[in-house]
């Protein structure tokens, strides 16, 4: 009898494990603790972080590993968001994009300012406590979209080619 109970329990445990979704990859929602009062995730700042510098300036002044606060507009290509990861590119607000009346279907690709974009673009990846990118699309949990103006706070990573990536721990969506 004991044997049967043990076997049944093992089977139930196996089934429970087997039914669990996922392949061991850290899923986004598990990392996104929501504040019930504000309705925001742990990555969204309550107030705008101070001392934000535009992307172009940051590309000139920021060193590798330095803490940095950047302001920019989500864009730089026709698809600025990375599907399945909380990562996207931002462009310096000084770079103009197509006005509404021009009828451009994707003004966030800055198609008329491609040369200016090269010196005024940065990649932002929202990282969890362990420094890994959150595995959830930023549009799904940060309420951002193309041409949203954001302020991000995190650690800068520079390479020899001058590329700037920010491993951001906080993001603030500017309403203006």
């Amino acid at each position, binding site marked *: 009898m004991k044997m049967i109970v043990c076997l049944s329990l093992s089977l139930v445990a196996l089934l429970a494990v087997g039914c669990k979704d996922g*392949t061991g*990859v850290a899923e986004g929602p598990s990392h996104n603790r929501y504040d019930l009062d504000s309705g925001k995730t742990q990555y969204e700042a309550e107030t705008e972080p101070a001392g934000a510098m535009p992307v172009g300036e940051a590309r000139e002044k920021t060193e590798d590993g330095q803490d940095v606060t950047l302001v920019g507009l989500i864009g*730089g*290509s*026709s*698809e600025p968001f*990375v*599907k*399945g*990861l909380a*990562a*996207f*590119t931002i462009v310096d607000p000084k770079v103009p994009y197509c006005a509404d009346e021009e009828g451009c279907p994707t003004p966030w690709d800055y198609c008329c300012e491609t040369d200016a974009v*090269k010196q005024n*673009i940065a*990649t932002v*990846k929202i990282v969890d406590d362990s420094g890994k*990118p959150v*595995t959830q699309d930023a549009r799904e949990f940060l309420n951002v979209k193309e041409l949203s103006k954001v302020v991000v706070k995190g650690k800068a990573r520079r*390479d020899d*080619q*001058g*590329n700037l*990536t920010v491993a951001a721990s906080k993001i603030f969506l500017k309403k203006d």
Partner: protein
Amino acid sequence: MLLPWEYGVRNLARRPMRTALTLVALATVVMLVFVVVGFIRGLEQSLTVSGDEDVVLVYSVNSEENIENSSIAARTPSLLTASLDGAVKRFGITNVSPELYLGTRVKTDEGDGGLGLVRGVTLSTPLVRRRVKLTEGDWPGDGEVIVGRLAAAKLGSSDDAMAIGQSVEFEGRRWQISGRFAAGGAAYESEIWCKLGDFQTATKRQDLSLVAMLLSPQSSAAEVELFCKERTDLELRAIRETDYYASLQQHYKPVRLLAWFVVVLVSGAGIFAGLNMMYGAVAGRIREIATLQAVGYRRRAILISLVQEGVLLAAAGSLLSGVIALTMLNGMAVRFTMGAFTIRIDSVAILIGCGVGLLLGVLGALPPALKALRAEVATSLKAV
């Protein structure tokens, strides 16, 4: 009381010439529907099976959706493998395929030819392009090519001109065909493959068009995409291969919509042809219909009998077309901008073709039958 089933069947045999002509007209309409639906299904199938869930394509961000326009640095594959550990690695070989891909004028020995799709490949390509199977001959050596199952169709040439041992000419060089390959209906089947180094020499190019990576189950395309976003200086973009072909499906959406519109137009024209035929058939039988009413058959029973005749004829026409479509049309190669694909008469095509056929029978028979039944019996009996 309904008219006997045999009455309708025998009626068809009473006027063999008219019945045969109606049958041919209906079969032609249904055949046209089969051709258009088979075309749409073939195109959809070709794009659906072309992508591999585990393969991610890396190409130039400036080429938009067209890989033929892409140009990326030759060092990109080594950069990707050094920076990312997501690609499958077996027996010391990383499953990453650098490729040069372009559309160029190809001429066969027979003198015909057209715009062909040529891909410069390496030995790692079949590891990534897992659907590709060498069906005849050998992997290409120097100055040799292997041709896809539909390459001849793409060039508007004959299969004999693309046989092993024959040669083709492109980029100012002659290339001997060393083998033939199939890819389960995928888009590569309309391509010509040669050695990457040879193709770069012939085209005087040192760059690549794309890098295809086979990802291990633990990694995701998002990681490659993130790498491309971070290395903005390389101007790369990454996309899962299935997503790439899904975007092509969107690209060809107007073509598919137009094709469905043609189906509706052909069906509409078919219904009018059926109406014309049935009006003629019923007009010559006004006295017979009135006699049936006088004998005591209800209008509904006569109507059902006339519809039965129309449906029988339409069903026969659909069957005839279905057999012809399955035996002669199915698998026929069609040349298209993106390459070539085969017309596909599958269950959906059969269902739509036969459905339209039966609809022609019902809709074609109803109005003339109703018109004949509306007339006064006494007047109709005197009709000439």
